[in-house]
Structure formats: structure tokens, C-alpha cells
């Protein structure tokens, strides 16, 4: 038995110059906020940009974007939604609504493969992929199917986060996955001595820290408003992160 969908995935991604994948060991470290604001920033700079939310169990990128998603337009496949600044966006939410989807194993992979096979991105300068936390099916499938990707890991300045992220990095090393950098999120400069990101992660694995982003209490108010997300302090920090991977 052959799954024909696997034969078109490379084709779907052939027009995409760079794929930035945001992963993390634990949830709640700001992976989705970082993914969304990164994508918005790239789009606002004039790059043709896509954003793919592959966190099926915790899909939230549409909430950050303030997007009300109906069924997608169809043309040779499904077309991503046009969000602010011309950002092209795709998620599982148009098909599941705000219902939880208790999926395991093969069903997760099948949903991911379907989205990769039928979404028509066309030509993009960047595709940002928001992954779920951990080292589960979705992360392993993206490593398997997308050879040309840049993995960026999110962590927070806590021993717990650093230790869990360490395991993620070790698995990536075993899978020969190159890691472009680490972003430390929700840093608290008053307790910078407690940040384990530098010692346990960056120095040990020789991975650059792309930015250490402070916690911003006013970030919550910007959720749902792409302009606000971009223009606030968090947006400025994301631009700094992008600069550190050669994007201005």
C-alpha cells in the first residue's frame, strides 16, 4: 500500500526559500507568540511569508492573529488565508473549530501529512512553522519530511525549562538536526543569575542565543491585534532575533 500524499510534499515546499521551525521542550514558553510575531514581522518587511500552526492540540495562532477562519478557498488544493500584512496562514482550526481533538499517533501524522500535501503555498520567502511542545509525532514528522528547515528552540530562564529543552536538543543531535539558535523568552532581568539557558544549553551544545526576550506584562492586550503585536516591545525583540539570523 502506498500513501501517495508523501510524493507531493517536496513539491509543495519547492517554492519556499527558508522554513523556520519553532520548537520547545515544554509548553508555555511563548512559542506561538514568537512564531506569530516572527511571521508578522517578516510579512510587514515585505517578504512573502507563510505561517503554519501544527500544534493540533493547542492551536492558537489564529487567536493571536484575530482570525475568524472559515473553510479555505480551493485551487489545485487549499489556499492559505490572507492575514495582516499579506501573511499566508494555515491551521487545522477551520476544520475542527474550537473543539478539542483527542488524536493519537497515526491520526496525528495523517492530519499533518494531509495539511502538508494539500496546502498550496506557491512562492514564499519564508514559512514559519509553530510546533507543539515536546518531541512527539508532529516534530518527528517535520524532521522526516522537511529536510531544508531551520530549527529554532524556545526556552524560558528556568532550570525546569532548560533541563527539558536539553533533552530535546539531545534528540535533535541524535537525529542530526541542525539547530539555528535558542531564544530565551520571558526573561526576568532582575533574576538574570537564574537563567540556565546560557550554561546548560548554549555553551554545552555550542548553539547561539538569538535573543533573550523579557516578559512584557502588556503583551496580553495585544493578542488578536496584529498591528499591536508588531509595534510593541515584543515585536522589537523579535526584529532583533531576526537580525541575529541575518534577516533585516
Amino acid at each position, binding site marked *: *500500500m*502506498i*500513501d*501517495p*500524499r*508523501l*510524493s*507531493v510534499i517536496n*513539491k509543495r515546499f519547492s517554492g519556499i526559500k527558508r522554513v523556520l521551525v519553532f520548537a520547545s521542550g515544554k509548553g508555555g514558553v511563548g512559542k506561538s507568540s514568537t512564531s506569530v510575531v516572527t511571521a508578522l514581522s517578516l510579512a510587514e518587511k515585505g517578504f512573502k511569508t507563510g505561517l503554519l500552526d501544527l500544534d493540533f492540540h493547542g492551536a492558537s495562532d489564529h487567536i493571536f492573529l484575530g482570525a475568524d477562519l472559515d*473553510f*479555505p478557498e*480551493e*485551487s*489545485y*488544493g*487549499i489556499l492559505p488565508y490572507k492575514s495582516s500584512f499579506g501573511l499566508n496562514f494555515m491551521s*487545522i482550526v*477551520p*476544520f*475542527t*473549530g474550537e*473543539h*478539542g*481533538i*483527542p*488524536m*493519537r*499517533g*497515526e*491520526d*496525528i501524522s*495523517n*492530519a499533518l501529512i*494531509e*495539511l502538508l*500535501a*494539500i496546502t*498550496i503555498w506557491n512562492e514564499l520567502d519564508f514559512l514559519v512553522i509553530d510546533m507543539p511542545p515536546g518531541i512527539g509525532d508532529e516534530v518527528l514528522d517535520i524532521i522526516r519530511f522537511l529536510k531544508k528547515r531551520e530549527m529554532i528552540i524556545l526556552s524560558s530562564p528556568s532550570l525546569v525549562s532548560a533541563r527539558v529543552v536539553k533533552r530535546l536538543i539531545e534528540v535533535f543531535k541524535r537525529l542530526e538536526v541542525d539547530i539555528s539558535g535558542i531564544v530565551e523568552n520571558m526573561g526576568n532581568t532582575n533574576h538574570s543569575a537564574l537563567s540556565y539557558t546560557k550554561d546548560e544549553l548554549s555553551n554545552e551544545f555550542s548553539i547561539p542565543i538569538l535573543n533573550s526576550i523579557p516578559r512584557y506584562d502588556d503583551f496580553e492586550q495585544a493578542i488578536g491585534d496584529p498591528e499591536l503585536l508588531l509595534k510593541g516591545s515584543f515585536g522589537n525583540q523579535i526584529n532583533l532575533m531576526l537580525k541575529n539570523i541575518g534577516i533585516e
Partner: protein
Amino acid sequence: MHEWALAESVVEAVKEQIRQKDNMKIERVILLFGELQEINREIFDSGLDEFLEGCSWSRDVFVYEMEQAAFLCNNCSHEWSLPPEQKLNEDVQESIHFIPEAAHAYIKCPECGSPDFQIKKGRGIKIKEIHMLEKTS
């Protein structure tokens, strides 16, 4: 029209299989259509015609078989299929048509009511068999 993306995937997959076999030609391809996804055959066929342009083989080589949907409840081990009288509303059917695993948002085990189930069979499209023949000179 998203059937065209699936038609394209089928054509690419068959091309992959025949790529290294210059002395062979496609005789027959058996496709399994999963009941759950409700692929529109007419739209799929038009997609096949589009992506087969330039190929030495045509849509005539394709044989379609239907695979019934089958679910297994992880909670109580009940197995079930889609009864003909089960009516899902149009929007739900459309959601499942795009991504069959969206069923987890809408379908429950008829025995225990759990949404924790597996889709064992009949989700979408698969290539069951590809038969090739040696080219005659």
C-alpha cells in the same frame, strides 16, 4: 477542488514507482478511496486528466475500489463503521472531507461516548497496487 491536490499526489507517486524502470509501462493502478473522506470522483478524475497530460499512460489505467471506514475506540475497544443512516451535518462532513482526522472533533464512540478512537480504515486515498508490463518493442 482540493481533490486535484490528491490527484496530483497519485500521479506523482505512480511516476516515482516507474521512474527507474525504462523498459516497463503502467498497465493498471488500483486506488482505494476511503469512505470517510468522500472524495468527489468527478473532480478527482478531472484532476487526474490535468496531471496526466504528457504522460504515456491515461486515466484508463486506474481502477477504483472503496474502503469502508472503520473506527476503534481506545476507551472500550468497541469497533464500528459509518452506518448508512448516520447523518453528519453538512459543515461537519465538509470538515472531514478536507482533513479526515477532524472527525475527532465531531464523532464519538457509539458504545461509550468517548472521542478517543482511532481511524483504522477508510480515511482517505491510497494506492493499493501498481501493475506494470514490459514494453514491447
